């Protein structure tokens, strides 16, 4: 089969459909979908940040309500942690490749960088997410419970719960990195290799 024949064949497929636009409605349709996209992105960002957004004012109030110095310090640290998490979510969102006008190779490289960041965040979740949150929460509870009559037992129980939650967060994120991020990353790496070879 000759090259020209291949091209002709490709372009004259009888199974191929003809695209028709209803001109009066087309632009409105496209714009409506773009608007819906922007709205859903805002909602997604809000949903992802909601937990942290709620935590910040609650612990701000706690910092004023509870007289124990340790609880006040812990509340302050949880607020700082919340702000840090909001920044991490924002930074990660900014790195998501949405510039479709890049070249195919650049887009793949940007996708790889984004997926590598996702993998790193999931694998190190204990360090940047779970450990600070759980330690500060534990400190908060110690401040609240240490002067109570049965405080010692309650502190030990809270400590065990914090450790268990930390372990669960760590392993769930490891599984998520392995199951969802790594296969995508492998596919993108294979594509880059296929394109460059």
């Amino acid at each position: 089969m000759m090259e020209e024949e291949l091209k002709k064949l490709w372009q004259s497929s009888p199974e191929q459909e003809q695209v028709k636009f209803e001109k009066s409605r087309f632009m409105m349709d496209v714009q409506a979908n773009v608007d819906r996209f922007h709205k859903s992105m805002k909602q997604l960002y809000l949903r992802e940040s909601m937990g942290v957004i709620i935590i910040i004012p609650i612990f701000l109030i706690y910092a004023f309500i509870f007289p124990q110095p340790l609880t006040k310090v812990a509340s302050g640290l949880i607020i700082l942690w919340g702000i840090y998490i909001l920044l991490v979510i924002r930074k990660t969102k900014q790195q998501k490749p949405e510039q479709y006008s890049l070249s195919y190779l650049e887009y793949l490289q940007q996708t790889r960088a984004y997926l590598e960041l996702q993998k790193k965040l999931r694998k190190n979740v204990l360090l940047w997410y779970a450990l600070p949150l759980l330690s500060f929460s534990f400190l908060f509870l110690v401040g609240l419970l240490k002067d109570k009559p049965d405080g010692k037992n309650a502190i030990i129980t809270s400590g065990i719960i914090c450790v268990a939650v930390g372990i669960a967060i760590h392993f769930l994120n490891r599984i998520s990195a392995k199951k969802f991020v790594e296969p995508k990353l492998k596919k993108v790496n294979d594509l880059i290799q296929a394109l460059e070879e």
Partner: protein
Amino acid sequence: MDIELENTFLTGLERNKQKLLRICSVYARDHEDKKDLFQEVLVNIWKSMPSFKAKSSIDTWMYRVTLNICLSTQTKLTKKKKHFINMDSVKLSQYEGPPLTEEDNQRILFLRSCIKMMNDADKGVITLYLEELAYKDIATITGLTENHVAVKIKRIKKKLLNCIIEKS
């Protein structure tokens, strides 16, 4: 809406709609998937229009966006938006050109299935080649050098022809 931008978009789309649909078809699993992918491409081309700087032609730029959208749905970086994109103003109707011979129909089937068997990178390059884009444009779209594109096309074409011969 920027009228100039809208005109550039509509003119480019009118000229390239069939080509964009054919590119989508090699990345889609079935007919429904193709329609969804094509609609997603249209919406994203319009969404990206403000970043079009006329450094390259609008045609080349549209192919670039199309390939990247097809790729991002393949790697599932963009979640499927069946519920999200719904454009009643876009219709796909059956081809009404002169009928092809049985032999040609068969060859088209072979050609399509052989392209579908390739990896996503090769699919993109060979589709652009079959759409008769110049090597220079394919290089701009893919981010490779012209020489690299020429070598790649030669290799993919050989693979494609072997596959078609095997099938027939």
